[in-house]
């Protein structure tokens, strides 16, 4: 199967848009035949990924745009998240130990726990950052 675009959306990096992202990801999961358990996990991972862009790339108050693209290559759903903020410190993107009980720091852990593959990087010319995640679907 060729890789099929499920949808691509551009939205402001604002917390009140997250509910819209969750709704779209949920429907995308259902559309591609994911069961409810898998769909719920995809929603969690994508919500956390967008949160990280809002909080850490755009630092909660800088205006900015997020682009979310979802593709299906037949065996995997591929999620590409792009922002146009200043390049982030890639070494700082790591999950914390769960035994270290404190508020915060769970987002990266959730993403890596749920997704089969994750790749982060900078856009060419320092134009922003990207996060690509893949999840195997039956």
């Amino acid at each position, binding site marked *: 199967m060729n890789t099929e675009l499920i949808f691509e959306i551009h939205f402001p990096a604002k*917390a009140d848009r997250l509910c819209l992202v969750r709704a779209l990801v949920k429907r995308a999961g259902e559309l591609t035949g994911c069961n409810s358990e898998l769909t719920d996990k995809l929603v969690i991972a994508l919500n956390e990924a967008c949160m990280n862009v*809002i909080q850490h790339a755009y630092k909660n108050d800088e205006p900015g745009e997020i682009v979310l693209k979802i593709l299906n290559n037949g065996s995997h759903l591929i999620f590409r998240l792009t922002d146009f903020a200043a390049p982030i410190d890639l070494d700082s993107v790591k999950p914390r130990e769960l035994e270290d009980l*404190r508020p915060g720091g769970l987002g990266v852990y959730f993403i890596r726990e749920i997704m089969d593959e994750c790749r982060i990087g900078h856009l060419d010319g320092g134009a922003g950052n990207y996060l690509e995640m893949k999840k195997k679907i039956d």
Partner: protein
Amino acid sequence: MKYNTREAGGYAVLELSGDVDLSCSPDARKQILQCLEGGKHLLVDLSGVTYIDSSGVASLVEGYQTARKKQLRFGLVGVSEAAMNVLQLARLDKVFPIHATVGDRLQADG
């Protein structure tokens, strides 16, 4: 997110409902900490929570840790399936005291 507070058996009970995400978790955090500032033991009722993200969970963790420092009791009751999925992912279902109802918690307190 909506919230409501009531009292039961010596506890403040904070009922959260709807989605507890980054757009409103600061409100959840504020309500949790205000209840504890009042010197009351606190139960957070999550039966109406349809979604909670890591920022919402962070508010619960901060409440739990603040309660411990103040030597106040803290727990969760009526955790919805959506909330439990996230707590289990974070392995916090083994950290927070969790009961099905306020009554169950009061009974457990003895």
